[in-house]
């Protein structure tokens, strides 16, 4: 029984307004300014995180799949230690090392307890600078990748996602190229060495160090980095960089990929939008949130809560240096894809016709401010935000500008943006599911 003395219908007021301030990684000034390094001397736990990022990724590789296999093989042994020895040493000291290759950059991350840095840091450097790429380990990885490919290829989301990429990107764009088992089989040790030489050089390398003891260890790290990666090893720009600005707008289309035994339909849809560096980007990000970026979004309300067609539907923005891709994704009950697509188009169109109510706009604005605040809370989150921006040559100003847009943009401006960018008839759609 509710206590009548408590007025449950009245929402309590917060005691104060949340203030949005944050620390930001600071450049470390040192004698010859190489490598570029930033430091965030923050954190409660005895942990250190070191990130190294290079400004090229797999879009620029000369042999398809070589970059991704190269980064995977970095943890499979060095010239000094075989894979068993190297991994055993890293595990022994509780180090967590991750190498990854993205479309436009490649990165290496080390997370380690402060007291084990002297043991793990040399192993981290050794893997990056002296990988062995032994053929026997390469063959094991290739076999494993092919097997995983066969498993993935049974999934509807994989089939729809591949089809979408081919619809969005022209044939000469690296994103339109789809992996097949033969691509893995064609990769040799020489391809990995070539990818390593071009990607993981001193050129285009930048570093962040984060943790409560960061400033104490940085001078030593710089000495090691300069010794390990003397300037210049090779000019990585010798890898041709495509001019990706000239992507022709994809033709609107709906393509279906049949899969005989499927129980659902996977839907993927996209629009090509301006890049993160464009002044309109902040507004577009807000628009995507309203459409499908949170639990209360228009699409979640319509497709899941009102119609019960799906467990989840979402819209998000994927950023690249020259453009961004607005995507919508959902796994739907079989046979409902026509209705779902109709409703997706309806919601896109509605955003370009009807002003957001003050109530909805207030909700979205608060939600996004909360997200921003959470994304800047704690040293590990801050370092993630730093790299999100550094990858596009953006800095802390971007966050202030985003906050300003959140505070100042009007529903009238959002309707204008929606009318310009959320055109239902421009949508590129791929679905995969059972044949009719």
């Amino acid at each position, binding site marked *: 029984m509710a206590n009548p003395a408590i007025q449950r219908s009245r929402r309590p007021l917060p005691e104060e307004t949340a203030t949005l301030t944050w620390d930001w990684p600071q450049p470390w000034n040192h004698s010859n300014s190489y490598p570029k390094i930033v430091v965030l001397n923050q954190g409660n736990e005895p942990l250190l995180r070191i990130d190294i990022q290079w400004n090229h990724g797999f879009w620029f590789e000369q042999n398809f799949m070589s970059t991704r296999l190269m980064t995977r093989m970095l943890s499979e042994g060095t010239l000094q230690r075989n894979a068993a020895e190297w991994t055993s040493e890293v595990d022994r000291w509780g180090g967590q090392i991750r190498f990854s290759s993205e479309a436009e950059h490649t990165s290496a991350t080390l997370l380690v307890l402060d007291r084990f840095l002297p043991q793990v840091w040399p192993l981290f450097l050794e893997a990056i600078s002296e990988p062995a790429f032994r053929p026997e380990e390469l063959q094991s990885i290739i076999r494993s990748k092919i097997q*995983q490919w066969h498993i993935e290829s049974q999934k*509807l989301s994989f089939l729809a996602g591949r089809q979408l990429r081919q619809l969005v990107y022209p044939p000469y764009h690296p994103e339109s190229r789809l992996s097949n088992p033969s691509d893995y089989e064609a990769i040799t040790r020489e391809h990995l060495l070539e990818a390593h030489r071009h990607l993981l050089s001193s050129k285009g390398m930048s570093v962040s160090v984060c943790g409560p003891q960061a400033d104490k260890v940085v001078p030593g790290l710089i000495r090691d980095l300069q010794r390990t990666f003397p300037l210049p090893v090779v000019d990585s720009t010798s890898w041709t960089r495509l001019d990706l600005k000239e992507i022709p707008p994809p033709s609107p289309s709906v393509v279906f990929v049949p899969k005989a035994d499927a129980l659902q339909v996977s839907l993927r849809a996209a629009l090509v939008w301006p890049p993160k560096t464009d002044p309109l980007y902040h507004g577009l990000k807000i628009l995507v949130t309203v459409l499908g970026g949170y639990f209360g979004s228009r699409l979640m309300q319509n497709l899941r809560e009102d119609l019960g067609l799906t467990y989840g539907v979402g819209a998000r923005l994927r950023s690249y240096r020259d453009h961004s891709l607005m995507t919508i994704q959902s796994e739907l009950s079989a046979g409902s894809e026509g209705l779902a697509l109709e409703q997706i188009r309806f919601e896109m169109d509605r955003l370009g016709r009807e002003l957001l109510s003050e109530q909805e706009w207030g909700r979205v604005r608060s939600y996004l401010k909360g997200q921003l605040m959470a994304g800047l809370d704690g040293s590990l989150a801050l370092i993630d935000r730093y790299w999100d921006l550094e990858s596009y040559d953006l800095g802390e100003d971007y966050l202030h500008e985003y906050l300003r847009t959140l505070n100042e943009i009007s529903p009238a401006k959002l309707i204008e943006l929606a009318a310009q960018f959320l055109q239902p008839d421009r949508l590129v759609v791929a679905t995969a599911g059972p044949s009719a």
Partner: protein
Amino acid sequence: MKTNFERRVLPNGLTLLLRRDDQTRMGCLNLMVRVGSRDESPDQTGFAHLFEHLMFSGSKHVPSYDQVAQSMGAENNAFTSNDLTNYYLTFPAPQLEVALWLESDRMGFPLIDQKALDTQKHVVVEEFKERYLNQPYGDAWLELRDLAFQVHPYRWATIGKEISHIEQATLDQVQAFRRRFYAPDQMILGINGPYDLLQVEEWVTRWFGDLEPSGDIRPSYAAEPQPTGIRRREKQGAYPAPALYMAFPMPGRASEDYHACDLITDVLSRGQSSRLFRGLVMDRPMFSDLNAYVTGDMDPGLLVVSGHCAQGISIDDAENAVWEELYKIANHGPIQDELNKSLNQIEASLVMGRTNGLNVAMNLCYFEYLSQAGDLDREIEAYRKVTPDRVRAMAAKLLKPERASILRYLPNEQDDHG
């Protein structure tokens, strides 16, 4: 490692755990309800999870939970396991009282009508298809639980044993479920943020203090009989590769033997230098991936080894290779060096987990549910007490063929890429 926290119990049985963290500007609220799929009736499975969905349908004084959560800048979600249902919310720190008001209203006064039930039944059925039926090996846990358990309610998954149980759920059944389990004496509330205990206690009492306890005392769950022979199940179909799941009964999460069991799986497959990965994925490639893990259930659960066979490797050869590794650890145990490696990895993971306020609040609730929240800080010591010989002895006791439940997926001949 010490997690400074305060514990209070309200007169209605709600347990409050507060960890003050002055370094953060975010608040985290975690509410754990002592109900999971093990509390369901065998012919009404999937209820705990379905009910979790329904708790987002609004409440008497807050018609839309999500709209209020979003308007306070919060991110929220929930999950259900065999043992518990967990709701969580992160928000700008000054919004704590709003979060407590919001959470208490749906816990005490949820509005669940036929329309909400019908919609969420559709949503959960789609989730069932998406996660369990519509992808290769997606039904592995439905099959494995059914094979490994005969009487204990762990024999069905949280999503439910079959779709029809969800489709047939009625409003009366759902309401009865709520009355029994959604009461303050069945709940543990964990909070992390820059808060003063007295203030938090006052707010929690204000918003949760008038909720009525259910007084429900759970019967002990049917004890699973000791297995008396190997159990096998094979599924033939359009699978991309043969796959193997081997499950062995093991003690529950609160048992003294739990940590030794967990270390068996760490030695076998934690990190790239582990025995299974190095031995059977890389050096002698029998599998494209192979993992060992414990389910960590509160009642006696499972130690599982699972993986997909490498190209050209038969399922029989792959299974035999796993047995060789299991015999090795059961007969010879790990060496101290291997244990030290696992212990450093565990310590690093625990320290990393402490950097996340929600993770801390959730862990405090979980350990309180198990026995007492303070045990969270004793975890690393519990692991450090385990000797190589203890691991060997546990492995020898657990990893016997007559205790194994083995599920194998066999591709049709034309589909086999192996």
